């Protein structure tokens, strides 16, 4: 994990270069086939991106309010469809949501407020296991039990 680059996202759990181009709205993306970064609002249907995932390097999912959990489903849908590019949670992202977001497939964060690095690390280390499968590859507890 590195300190935020100018205009970049932090924390970020990827080794590749940060996408240079600004993200466009879903409608703009679907009209303009050369964009490599797109931004989904909570009410955008993530499935509309599925035919185009191969040429996207960044999908930004907006959280205007942390209480609005639609973006968690959008993230999982994209990962389940095989998207391997950067998946960024942007907006009202708080330290106590980071662990769930990681499990849903987010690998970078652009919170409006700043996050305390120590608190982020602590939050990610709280739970030793997970009860259910999600997008992060963690083995569900039932899998650990039954080998």
């Amino acid at each position: 994990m590195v300190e935020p680059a100018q205009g970049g996202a932090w924390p970020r759990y990827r080794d590749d270069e940060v996408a240079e181009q600004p993200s466009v709205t879903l409608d703009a993306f679907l009209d303009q086939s050369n964009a490599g970064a797109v931004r989904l609002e909570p009410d955008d249907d993530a499935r509309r991106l599925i035919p185009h995932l191969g040429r996207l390097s960044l999908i930004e999912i907006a959280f205007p309010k942390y209480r609005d959990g639609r973006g968690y489903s959008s993230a999982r849908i994209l990962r389940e469809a095989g998207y391997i590019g950067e998946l960024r949670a942007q907006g009202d992202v708080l330290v106590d949501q980071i662990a769930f977001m990681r499990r849903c497939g987010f690998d970078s964060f652009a919170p409006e407020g700043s996050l305390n690095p120590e608190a982020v690390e602590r939050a990610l280390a709280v739970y030793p296991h997970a009860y259910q499968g999600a997008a992060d590859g963690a083995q569900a507890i039932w899998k650990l039990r039954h080998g």
Partner: protein
Amino acid sequence: MYKYDNYDQAMVDARVAEFRDQVKRRLAGEMTEDQFKPLRLMNGLYLQLHAYMLRVAIPYGTLDSRQMRMLAHIARKYDRDYGHFTTRQNIQYNWIKLEECGDLLEELASVEMHAIQTSGNCIRNISSDQYAGAAADEVTDPRPWAELLRQWSTFHPEFSYLPRKFKIAVIASPEDRAAMRLHDIGLELVKKDGELGARVFVGGGMGRTPMIAPEINSFVKADDLLSYIEACLRVYNRYGRRDNIYKARIKILVHEIGADAYRAQVEEEFAHVKALGIDPPLAELERIAVFFDLPEPIQSEVRHSREGGDPSPDHSIDAIVQEIDSRLRGGDDWGAFETWVKQNVKPHKAPGYAIVNISLKPIGGIPGDASSSQMEVMADLAEKYGFDELRVTHAQNIVLPHVAKRDLYTVWQALSEAGLANANLDLISDIIACPGLDYCSLANARSIPVAQKISKRFGNLDRQRDLGELKLKISGCINACGHHHAGHIGILGVDRKGVENYQLTFGGSGAQDVSIGKIIGPGFDEDGVVDAVEKATEVYTRLREGEERFIDTYRRVGLEPFKEAIYG
């Protein structure tokens, strides 16, 4: 009963540590109340009128004596020596100090208990039939399925910021003792061609827009269940309304788009989710089910009676009374004991056993409250005479599910001494009531005093028993925590220009004859509503035919005769 393994314990311990840290940051001012709120709510901690209220989960209402003693200890050490059992089969404490929460949760964790997801917009405690494992009419014990769902829903990363709270109930009997179809998801376990699976109902609920859940699937196989429920939740998380808190429950989504459209979306999502491999193998359900096996002496009796020892056991209460030691019949207390057996004891699937209901509804008391010492008495009785099991019911009572018939008298005596032998199960004084304006920051009116007045008005047990089954439920606001929509008689407290006013509804039911009550007319003040209830019971006794219950008579004759007597 389910026992935690190292994984389960590690998860609960981690939660305690996490919440301790969150409380510390809140107390240090590193977090605003607004930021802290969703975190404490996922730990069952509410800020009420006078203090913090903590709701402790009792998964599917099942607990053992050690856990009940811990609940008593918590009440004594951290609260004012009592707790309140809720309609979600949980317990809540009304006078909790934020700075003591970490210690309290740590004590709970030491007996495999927690407050995880007892509030907040997430999947709440899974509720079930309080007679599970003991009921003669069940196709299987629903609790292993409920435990499977508990684990799947715990810290679910995708469904922790849903549009609104989400409640799931699981039953396995044709008789519905858990208000199953008034849940966001209701599951009824059924057998099809020898295989167990679930009928799935989605979109029920009470609140300001009561709805009965329509059937979305008539049979989901055990090893598809989690995928199917995950699909149900994902459709809701994506499309449930978030613009208006009062329209955010799944019932509104299902109602607005229609059950068929919702079903189609779920099927589509299920086809996708099923491929992810999130369903545990049946071996996991079997692993869990072993914990719920009946105690050996009961099992061998069930086997014996099935194998032709008694081809058609008489499960009636009269049969139970007949079997009780005849030497007791001469005693001064025989009458009171016999009445209690007839009212509060229910037949068990094993011939030598019975189900004991402990009513937490003394005349003039607060429905669902129990003192620390009462909790300890119940724990002792469970340990000595009940194979160490207790249940909490959605009607705010306690059950000892496996008591040998020969011990009934001893158990009754001990309950009597503790003020717990109220023989009023399912009678008019067995009232469900929310905490109301005495505690709750959402309430518009008080519920408890109304419950107390009605209970006193009908204090005479013979009169109550003559009225028979009459489910009366009181909510202090439109959120309907007191289940008034499902009451044969329901009372809803509202605020009318600064004055508490009570509306009366008739005809609701949370059982297998599920229905939503209808408002009968203009509201009343506190004493007026008690009078109106009394008048309604008089109309019933005048018009009833045969064995009709209040609700049967009401359904047959309609509202008019009642309205005439009350408003006439």
